[in-house]
C-alpha cells in the first residue's frame, strides 16, 4: 500500500493524479477463508482489521450485500463519547474513544477525529442527579468527565439559550475528549488497511444461507456462490435477526427507523457536540459547516430507511428552542437509517448457539462511537473465545436478566 501524505499528493499532482492506486481491492471470493465477516460496515471492517493486527489472522473475507459503509456507518451523526454509566458500556466505549484518538495515524487515513467535546444538558432536577451519578461512575471507570454549571455551558457553546422559559439549562455533563469523526472515512480507512493486509472485501455479495455441520458453522451461501469458513462473524445490524434465522435461532431484537438531518452549511459557530435529552435533540457542526442534527426513533418497526416527519418536527422544535439562531437556517436534507434495538438497548457481542458463529449487533442508536472498541473486542472474542470488553454483552444476559441498561440515570440511552 502506498502511504498517504502531503508529499504523495504533491507527487501525484505533477501527473494529474493518474497514479493513485485503488484504496481497496475488489477481488472475486475464494472458496474458503479462516474467517468470514458478514457486513462491511464500520464494526465488521474494524473486526477484520483487529483480527489481522492483533491476532495475525489475515485469511479473512468481509462480505457485504451492498456497498461498504452503506448502512448506519454512513448515516449517523458521527458523535463519539464514552461518558456511559454502566461499567461494561464505559469500558467498551472508552476503548473505542481512545482508539479513535490515533485512528488516522494507525490507518494512514485521515478520519478527522476531532475531540471537540460533548455536552449533555441537564434540564430537570432529575437529569442533574442522573448526570451527577454518571460523573461519579466515570471517575471510577477512568473516563474523564465533569458536571459543569450553566455559565460554563454558555461559555463552551455561546449560541445556546440557557434561559429557555420551559427548560432552563441547569448544567451539563461535559466530556472534553469526546467529539466527532468523518463517518465514511472510518469505513474507508479500515477497508483500505484490511485490503492491504491481504483480506478480501467483497461488495455486492449477499448472504442467502448459513451452512452448518454437526452444529458447527462451515460457511455461507451467497449470491456469488458458496464460501467456506471456520469461523463466521455476523455484523449486520438491523438484519441480524434475518441471519440468525438462517442459522436456526432467534435474536431478542427489533429494527426501527432513526432519522437525522443537516442544515445548509454556515461558517463555524459551534465547537462541540450538544445533546439535550429532555427536549430531545442533539446537534454539532460538521467540518463542511452543516449543522448535523439527530432525533428520535419511530415508534414502530420497519426497514424503509425513512421515517415519520413528525419526529423531524419534534427534533427541530427542540433545537430551535435550545439554539434560537438556527430558526433562520434551512434544512438541507433529512434521511433515515434502520437501527437494531435490543431489550436493554445495549449491544449483543456474543458467541451464537451455532459453534464457530459469532454475533455483533444491537448497537441501536449509538454504534458509530463504538466502532474501534467493538472491532477490538469482537476480534478478541472470535480469536480467543473470550474478551473482557465483550464478556458482559453475551446473549445469555437476556435469559438471566442481567441487563446493561444505559437509559437508567437520566434517560439517555445512546
Amino acid at each position, binding site marked *: 500500500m502506498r502511504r498517504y501524505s502531503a508529499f504523495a499528493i504533491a507527487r501525484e499532482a505533477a501527473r494529474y493524479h493518474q497514479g493513485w492506486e485503488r484504496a481497496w481491492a475488489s477481488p472475486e471470493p475464494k472458496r474458503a477463508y479462516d474467517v468470514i465477516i458478514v457486513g462491511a460496515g464500520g464494526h465488521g471492517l474494524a473486526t477484520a482489521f483487529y483480527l489481522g493486527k492483533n491476532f495475525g489472522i489475515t485469511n479473512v473475507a468481509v462480505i457485504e450485500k451492498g456497498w461498504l459503509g452503506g448502512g448506519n456507518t454512513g448515516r449517523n451523526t458521527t458523535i463519539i463519547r464514552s461518558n456511559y454509566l454502566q461499567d461494561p458500556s464505559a469500558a467498551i466505549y472508552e476503548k473505542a474513544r481512545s482508539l479513535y484518538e490515533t485512528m488516522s495515524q494507525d490507518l494512514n487515513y485521515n478520519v478527522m477525529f476531532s475531540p471537540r467535546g460533548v455536552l449533555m444538558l441537564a434540564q430537570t432536577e432529575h437529569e442533574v*442527579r442522573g448526570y451527577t451519578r454518571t460523573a*461519579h461512575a466515570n471517575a471510577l471507570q477512568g473516563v474523564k468527565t465533569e458536571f459543569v454549571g450553566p455559565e460554563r455551558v454558555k461559555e463552551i457553546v455561546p449560541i445556546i439559550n440557557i434561559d429557555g422559559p420551559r427548560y432552563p439549562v441547569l448544567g451539563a455533563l461535559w466530556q472534553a475528549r469526546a467529539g466527532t469523526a468523518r463517518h465514511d472515512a472510518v469505513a474507508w480507512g479500515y477497508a483500505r488497511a484490511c485490503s492491504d493486509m491481504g483480506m478480501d472485501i467483497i461488495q455486492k455479495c449477499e448472504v442467502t444461507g448459513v451452512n452448518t455441520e454437526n452444529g458447527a458453522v462451515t460457511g455461507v451461501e451467497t449470491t456469488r456462490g458458496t464460501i467456506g469458513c471456520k469461523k463466521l462473524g455476523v455484523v449486520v445490524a438491523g438484519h441480524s435477526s434475518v441471519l440468525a434465522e438462517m442459522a436456526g435461532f432467534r435474536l431478542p431484537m427489533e429494527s426501527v427507523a432513526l432519522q437525522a438531518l443537516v442544515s445548509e*452549511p454556515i461558517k463555524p459557530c459551534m465547537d462541540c457536540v450538544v445533546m439535550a435529552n429532555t427536549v430531545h435533540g442533539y446537534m454539532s457542526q460538521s467540518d463542511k459547516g452543516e449543522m448535523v442534527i439527530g432525533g428520535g426513533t419511530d415508534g414502530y418497526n420497519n426497514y424503509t430507511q425513512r421515517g415519520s416527519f413528525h419526529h423531524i418536527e419534534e427534533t427541530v422544535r427542540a433545537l430551535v428552542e435550545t439554539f434560537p439562531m*438556527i430558526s433562520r437556517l434551512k434544512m438541507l436534507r433529512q434521511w433515515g437509517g434502520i437501527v437494531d434495538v435490543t431489550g436493554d438497548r445495549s449491544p449483543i457481542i456474543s458467541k451464537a448457539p451455532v459453534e464457530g458463529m459469532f454475533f455483533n449487533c444491537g448497537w441501536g442508536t449509538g454504534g458509530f462511537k463504538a466502532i474501534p472498541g467493538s472491532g477490538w473486542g469482537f476480534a478478541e472474542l472470535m480469536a480467543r473465545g473470550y474478551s473482557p470488553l465483550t464478556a458482559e454483552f453475551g446473549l445469555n444476559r437476556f435469559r438471566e436478566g442481567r441487563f446493561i441498561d444505559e437509559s437508567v440515570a437520566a434517560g439517555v440511552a445512546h
Partner: protein
Amino acid sequence: MSTRLASGGRLIDRHTTRTFTFNGKRLSGHDGDTLASALLANGQTLMGRSFKYHRPRGVVASGAEEPNALMGIGEGGRFEPNQRATTTEIFDGLTAKTQNHWPSLDFDVGAVNAMVPRLLPAGFYYKTFMFPRPFWKHVFEPVIRKSAGLGAAPKDRDADRYEHFYAHVDLLVAGGGIAGLQAALRAGQAGLRVLLVEQTAHWGGRAPVDGVEIGGKPAEEWINDTLQALEGMENVCIRTRSMASGVYDHGYALVYERLTDHAPEMGGPRHRLWRVRAGQIITATGAIERPLSFAGNDIPGVMLASALRDYVVNWGISPGDRTVIVTNNDDAYRTALVLHEAGLAVPAIVDARPSATGDLPQAAREAGIRVLTGTGIAEVKGRKSVTGVVLCAQAGEGAATDEIACEAVAMSGGWSPVVHLWSHCGGKLIWDAERSHFRPDAARAPTGHDGKPFVITAGAASGAETAGDVLADAKTAAGAAADALGRSLPDLDAAGTNDPHEEPMAPVWIMPQGAGPAKRMKMWLDYQNDVKVSDVRLAAQEGYESVEHTKRYTTLGMATDQGKLSNINGLATLAGALNAEIPAVGTTTFRPPYTPISMGAIAGEARDATFQPLRRTPIHDYHEDQGAYMEPVGHWRRPYTYPKTGESHAESVHREVLATRNSLGLLDASTLGKILVKGPDAGKFLDMLYTNMMSTLKPGKCRYGLMCNENGFLMDDGVVARLDEDTFLVHTTSGGAEHTHAHMEDWLQCEWWDWKVHTVNITEQFAQIAVVGPNARKLLEKMGGDMDLSAEALPFMGWAEGRIGGFDARVFRISFSGELSYEIAIPASQGRAFWDAALEAGGTWDITPYGTEALHIMRAEKGFIMIGDETDGTVIPQDLGLNWAISKKKEDYMGKRAQARSHMTDPTRWKLVGLETTDGSTLPDGAYCIAAGTNANNQRNVQGRVTSTYHSPTLGRGIAMGLVLNGPDRMGDIVEFNKVDGGTVAAKIVDPVFFDKDGEKQNV
C-alpha cells in the same frame, strides 16, 4: 457586461422602482425582478464564491436549481444566509451580501486555493493533515472549517414567526406550469378537492418563455383562462410561492409557503408549513436543464441556455452583447432565436451533434445565425467573466479550431425530469436512453397503505418534452388520479399546440469527447462544491465505485442545490470511468426537502413559552404569585420550594420541613396521576398489573402497590383506592401517569382485549391537596363540613367522601411524609378555592405550603422509596426490601416470571439500606460505594451506590439511602463512597427508616 434591455421583460413592471443594497451598494430594479435578474440588470455578473476553491461564480440558473448565486439576505433578527438570488424577489430595502470570501467578493484571499487546485483533488483531506496528531484539532481543522461553510451564522434571535396549516385533499398538484394547471383544471372539473401549489410567484412555468401556443392562443392567455376557471371553483385551492417539499408515507406531503419573504412589510407569519394528507399526488414539477462539461464551464457568464432565455424574456436582460450557444439538442436554439429577436448577437451556435436539421436549427439558420455542428468548446476564456470561447472538434481531444469573443455562453446538455417528489417515498426510476435521462417508472410508483400507487407524474416531470405531449400527459395524469379516487373526468380533448419538430438530442457527457486530464480538471460538475470531471474519475480510479461512495468521496451533489444540476452529469462521468452503463451505476437516494426549508417553519409556533404544552394545576397561579422556584416535572411545573425574601432554597426547604413536622404543611399534589379503572374484571386486571393483591381490597380502603414491567423492574408505585365493587382509583407518580395509562391500554388492547375493563385518565379532573402535620385534623375540623375525620371513623389507609368547608371532597388518609396526613381530592374547578380556604383557616397553626424538595426530604427521613431515585429501571422490589408488597398467593403478575431469573434471585444483588456519614455531612448525590481492586477492564470495583441523599432538617445531619452489596446484613459497617474529585467519604450502613420508626406520628 450584462444590462437591462430597453424593452421586454414579461414579469417586470417597468413603471416601478425598487431599491436594494448589494454588498453595501445601492442598486435598483423593478417589481417582478428577482435579486439575480436585478443584479444582472445592474451589470453585476459576479455573485459569489465557490465552497472549496473560492472560485468566482456568476448565476448559472434562473430558479431553485441555482448552485452559485447564494447570498446573505436581511439584517439582525431577519438575517438569513445562503439564499438563492434566483428565487429571492426584490423589495424596497432588501439588503444582500455575498458570502464565502475575504476581504471582498472581488478580491478573495481564499482564492489562493484555486491557484493550486491540482494539490486539492477529491478527498485530498483523507490523505494528509495526519501529522503531528494534535494538529488536526488545533491547526488543520480550524483552518478548514473557517474556509468551508458558506454564509455567516445568524447571530440574533429570529424576529419572525411561523405557522403550520393542515389540509386534507383528494388531490395535491405540485407545480403550476401548464401541466399542473391542466391537471388541476381537469380534476377540479370532476369535483375533486384539489390543492395546486407553485413554488415561484408566477403561473405557467416555461411555456410562455418558450413561445408555446395552446389552442391557437399564446400560452399566457391559456394560462390566464385556466387560472380564472380554477379560481372560480370552490373545491380548488391554489397557492403561489408554495413549494411541495417532500412526499412521505400514506399520502402525507409538506408544502412550504413563503408568505412575506418578498414583502416583509405585510406582517404575519413569514413561512407556513402545510401538512397535507392527499388521496393522490400529481407531481408536475417540470424538468431541469443540464450543463455541459467543458473546460471553464464555471466562469461567470456561462449559463444554462434556458436560464439565459428566462432572463431575456422574463426580465428583459441582456447577458452581454455576444452570446455563444453550446448544445446537444434543439431546445437551446430557442435561446439563440430569443437573443436574436432582442437584437443581441449570437456569433455561433456550437452543436456537438453531427447535424442539426430540426425546425429550430432551420429557423436559426434562416435568421442568419452561424450553426457549427460536430463542434465543441475546448475552453472558455476569462477569469471573473467570460471573454471568449475556443472551439474544437467534439470528436477530438480539444485542439483549437477557432476562437470567438463573447461575454456569455449559453449551454444545454439536455433535460432531466424533476423526480424528487416521486422518489421521496420509494418511486423508482427508469433510464430513457433516447432522451438520456432518468424518468419515473410508472409501473413502480410509491404505494400507500393499500398497496396502491398514490403519486402520479405529469408533463415534463414524466419525461414529456413538447408542450403538446406535456398537456396530453397531464390529462392522462388527472384521469389516473380521478380513477384512483373513484371519480371520472369529463372527456375533453387537450387543446392543440404549435410545437416545432425537434430532432433527438445526443448525449454529450464530456466536451470534447477525448479531453485529457488537464482539461478534465477544468470541467465543473458540481459548481458549489467544486467537483470536477477529474474528481469523479479519480474516485472511480481509487475504487470508490459505488455511486454513493463517489458522492461521499467527492462531495458531488451534496451542496445546497443537492445536485440538481450535477447529479446526472456526475453519474454519466462515473459510468464512463467504470466503463459501465448509466442505469447500472444507478442514482443516489432523493431525500426531502426538494429545496431547503427553514427550521423556523418546521418548528412552527412551538417556541419559547409555547415550546411544549404547559400543564397547570388548579393552584398553579398561587405558586407563581408566591415566587415559588418551579421545576419541570413532565409537562407540569411544580414548586420546588417557596423561598421568602432573602432565603436561599436550602433555607426555605429547611423551614418548610420543620413547619410541616411540627405543625401544619400544605402540598399541591394535583399532578399525581389518577386513573379510573372500572369494570367487572378491574380487580383481576389490577392483580396482573401490581405485585400485590388488589382484588381483595375493600371499598373504602386504600392500598399501596408496586407496578413492574415485563422484565420485573419496578416502573411505578402509588396508592390504589377501591371506590366500589367495580371501580378502582389508581394513583400513579406525577411523571408516570401517561406512561402508566398507556401501559394499561397496551395490555388491555393487545393481550387482554376480552377483559371487561375500562380505564380513563382523570388526573386533571381533580385538584389533590395534601394537608400534612400534627395539626392536619384540626384544620379540617375547623374548616367544617359533614365528615367524621377521627382516627376511628377514618383510620390510616382509609378514604371517605363528603364535604369539607363547603367543598365536595374525597379524603384519602395516606401519608408520604410520616405525619398525620389527608390527601384531599377536590373537583378541579374548586381546587384553588379550597387551597385558599385551607390557607386562611390554617393561619392559627402557621400553615406552610411546601414544595417537592421538602416532600422528598420527608419521605427520605421515613425511608420511603421514590420512583426515579431508588429505582432507575434496573431495580426490582426485592432489592428495596419491599417483599411484603409482593403477593405470594397470586399465580401471576407482570414481572413475576422475570423476577425468577437467575440474576434477579442472585443473593449478591445490591439492597436498600440507610447511610449516615461518620461526620454528619451529606453524601454526594450519585456517589458509588467503592470496593477493593479493579475489574478486568481496569475499572475500580464498586459495591453499591447512593440513591437519595439529603440534609435532614429534622435530624440535623446528612441522611442517605443507597443500594449496597449485602447491605441489610452489614448494619453498622463503615463503607467508602467516592467523590468526583477523587476523594472519598466514609458512611455507616444503617436502617433506611431514620425517623419515627414505629409510625407513631402518622397513626393518630
